[in-house]
């Protein structure tokens, strides 16, 4: 009898908890606070796309904060490029969540973390993407598109077996939800930005995820003016050994009067859009 009452009470609490965390109809993009690295969660309804996983298991905390507790499925896991600060966390994610698709650029690495990830995701359908392709996330009524702008198929073909910086392969794209656009850039920085411009896939966006944690070689002024965001987010760790974000990057953003938030100061930076208007929500310092 006692255990029946307890079961009913707990059942009711669980259901209330589930109702309380029921998702809305807006697009939510969370630039997760994962220390020095990238992890970005894109949610529409109960569908999620996780772009990169950060350097360790702190991405799990971000998923816990921004996904309903009963949702144990990630529809898409995307790895921009196989470097530790973008991929190691994906190992923890793949062990705990069921992943429907694993998408990445066709380039490998020799690290233990990368080999483990390939092992852990062996049963997950995988796709390589290149510029011009679009990933579509739909919840039935509305949909959000992620149009890949980099790397181009030619670039991957010409450079994948050469000793090119893996950052140059970073999958970048524009997330579009009706009239709202956000550019996600991975670590692809000023070395490839002229080529990005040449693809003619870049356009003006509302929000920019700053390339390469705000490194010195992050943004060309011409590239930034083409993208011309109203707000920028830098995914960066406290006291990191690279000195990110650099004075140069911050000055360039402030010279264009672009409101800038940083995950080392603001924690998770969440952007919410209904397709026309957008707003942001910070973990710290709202």
């Amino acid at each position: 009898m006692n255990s029946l009452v307890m079961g009913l009470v707990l059942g009711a609490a669980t259901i209330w908890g589930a109702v309380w965390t029921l998702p809305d109809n807006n697009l939510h993009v969370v630039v997760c606070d994962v220390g020095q690295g990238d992890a970005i969660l894109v949610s529409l309804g109960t569908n999620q796309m996780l772009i990169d996983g950060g350097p360790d298991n702190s991405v799990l905390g971000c998923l816990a904060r921004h996904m309903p507790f009963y949702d144990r499925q990630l529809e898409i896991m995307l790895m921009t490029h196989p470097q530790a600060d973008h991929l190691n966390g994906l190992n923890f994610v793949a062990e705990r969540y069921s992943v429907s698709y694993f998408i990445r650029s066709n380039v490998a690495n020799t690290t233990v973390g990368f080999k483990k990830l390939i092992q852990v995701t062996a049963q997950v359908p995988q796709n390589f993407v290149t510029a011009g392709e679009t990933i579509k996330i739909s919840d039935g009524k509305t949909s959000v598109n992620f149009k890949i702008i980099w790397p181009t198929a030619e670039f991957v073909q010409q450079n994948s077996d050469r000793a090119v910086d893996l950052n140059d392969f970073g999958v970048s794209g524009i997330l579009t939800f009706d009239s709202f656009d956000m550019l996600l850039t991975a670590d692809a920085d000023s070395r490839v930005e002229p080529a990005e411009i040449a693809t003619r896939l870049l356009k003006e966006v509302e929000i920019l995820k700053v390339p390469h944690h705000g490194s010195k070689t992050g943004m060309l002024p011409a590239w930034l003016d083409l993208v011309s965001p109203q707000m920028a987010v830098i995914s960066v760790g406290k006291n990191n050994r690279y000195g990110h974000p650099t004075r140069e990057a911050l000055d360039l953003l402030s010279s264009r009067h672009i409101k800038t938030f940083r995950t080392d100061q603001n924690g998770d930076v969440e952007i919410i859009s209904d397709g026309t208007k957008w707003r942001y929500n910070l973990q710290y310092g709202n």
Partner: protein
Amino acid sequence: MVLVGLFLLGLRIWYLRQEKFQYQVGQRVRITATVRGESIKVYQKLYLVIEEIAIEIPPSISVEYGDRLAITGTLISSVVKVKSAQFGLLQPHFQVIAHQQSVLAGVYKIRQRLIQGLTRWLPVDEAALDAGILLGGTEDMSSQLKLAFRRTGLSHIVAASGYNVTVVAGWTMLLFTRWFHRRLAIILGIGSIVLYVLLAGVTAAVVRAGIMSSSAWIGQLWGREADSLWLLGLAGWVMLMVNPAYASDIGFQLSMAATAGILWFRPAGDLWTSLAAQATTIPLILHHFGSLSVIAPLANLLLLWLVPPIMQVGAIGLVIGPVNWLVWPMLKLMTTTVIWLSSWSWSSWQVGQLSWWWVGAYYLVVILIGQIAKLKFQNYNSKL
């Protein structure tokens, strides 16, 4: 008998001193050891602790339970505080010599499986808390929550403790006495306690409780009721004889002190039990960590009642996955409350580390007060 016991213990420690290797900074060493526990995470880095040396494991190397390792490097004085390590190892070179299959490694695999099962149903911190309450350990817990548990004086909840062993012992006896003869039930009960101790990672607290429960049962087989304080002394003595290094294990010290406090004061009710345990562990916590959780009594009062139902439903959840969603509301309530309580600036005071002399003086005063209270109580009784 007590004197003989102490003499033997002294002999054991003296013998250990003789065979102990003297480490020196700058020495080039080659260590061979078998991995027999968790690696420890400090500021995103993994460490193995071998005797007094904390060795950083580079991210490019994966070390598994049961691996026999040969590690070479140069001794330096310890940079980070990992357990009681005095030394670190500069540029360690790892080599896995062999992988030993053992019962322990097998049980450890089961532990990992069980915890992994939880992590597929629950968000990371709730899964880590559930695993901590059921099996002990905080491996996957975010540093924020770990700190919150420490600041609120609730870390004992996530360290598999004597309480867990008592619960396991109670459950198994309830089941086994229904089916078997009492003698067989006790033997099976001891077997399941040993299994639980292994599953909980053979930490000092569960070993202590395991020895106490088992020896109480064996006493019953012989028809003897044993005094619990004596059993505690016996458990401590056996552990130190087998491994004198327990003496410097913080978990061992806290577990012995807390149990002694509870058995000696004989408190009634949850609140008084946790207060009794706090009264005898405070000087040790001050000695090792230098901080005093002011909010601990309130935090324990608010949250301890959640532990038994989490254990009951959580244990079912280890086997039947969806049941974990019924545990979730309780886990979420606990994580939210702990973080809320610890966010108050006054919930934990940094008072500086106490020397062993003060720890000794504290216990002397506690014992004196206790004895006087007992004498008064007896006088009062005899006058009636």
